């Protein structure tokens, strides 16, 4: 197993951890963190694609895509945080209204 493959598997693990947290937690700040962790997992897999083995020339295209991804992630995070603050200002809670509210 190469180093890149090992980190790619770690990336798949990060994606799964993030997906789990995204579905389980109700607080929106936690969901935003979860989406960011999922993104980092995807970036790790991409970076592993850039250097699949020691012989191949390191591929700059995935690296450029990851940098693009990091910037898009920070833009999305910033917008999501402002949306969360707006929702909190309106409802007093940083959770999405769901079935729980109707049942209780």
């Amino acid at each position, binding site marked *: 197993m190469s180093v890149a493959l090992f980190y790619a598997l770690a990336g798949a693990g990060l994606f799964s951890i993030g997906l789990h947290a995204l579905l389980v937690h109700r607080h929106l700040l936690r969901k935003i963190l979860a989406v960011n962790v999922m993104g980092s997992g995807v970036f790790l897999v991409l970076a592993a694609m850039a250097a699949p083995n020691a012989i191949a020339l390191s591929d700059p295209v*995935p690296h450029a895509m990851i940098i693009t991804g990091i910037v898009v992630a920070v833009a999305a995070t910033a917008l999501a945080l402002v949306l969360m603050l707006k929702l909190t200002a309106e409802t007093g809670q940083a959770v999405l209204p769901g079935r729980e509210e109707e049942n209780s």
Partner: protein
Amino acid sequence: METLISWAIDVALALLVVSLAWRALASTDLFKAIVLFIAFGLVLTLVWVRLNATDVALAEAAIGAGVTGALLLAAYAKLRATSPDAIVDRAGGISGIGAISLLILILLVAAALGYAVWTLPSDYTGLGKEVAANLDQSGVSNPVTAVLLNFRGYDTLLEIMVLLLALLGAWSLGITIPRPEAAPGLVLDTLSRLLVPLLILVAAYLLWVGAHAPGGAFQAGAVLAAAGVLMLLSGRELPAALATWPLRLALVLGPATFLMLAVITLILEGRVLKLSPEWAGRLILIIETTATISIGVTLTALFMGAPPGEEDR
């Protein structure tokens, strides 16, 4: 022996990254979660270095850990100021059979992803050779900058637009910013006086060095944003005279220059962002310089969350 040490470092880093992500997403305290998430970003930076992706490492440290961390902490403070109840993370709404079936589903997803990654062809060579072959046509000698600003310039154009759109979205929501709780004090003020000029210098250096070594507009823009955030934290405000059209000009300078170049190349060269080799180096420097200014100002504005001058509505 050397490979053994190398593997030990990689295994330790991977375990640290995964466990930090897990703890950030599982800890009951939201503040702790944010701090762990920032630590996660910093350890991930070391992973990028291990994977020979130094450009990505710089971007991760500056944007992924730095700017995102500042945004998260600022949002946490605003959340607490809005309602003390809102920072309490109550246990999830899923329990019992739902939680177990969800866990099974996630494990299936993880297994499928792991299998897909495991079976990736190992003789895949990527585009490294093609980029290297055309590098002398691109106007820069750092392959990542060549891909970002020349070979796949439209990606970067759209990316800068996304950043601007995010700011427009944030501004249009019209949230109010609570006043800072306490005066910043002398120490932070002194730090910002010492650091802001140095940060601007570092941003210029990163921008310049991006042509032939790891660096570039996004890393430089993030460093500029760090200077802006530091000034905001130490109690300085944007003068009212600059908060009107000069601020808007700085925000659209990068996207507008890039877009204009896209239109000009479409007309003259027949293809969007086709940079002719003899001009490419200079054009990339112009795009990157304007983009750095706009990225820095946009990220600082995103940190503020609302247009300056509208804090006290």
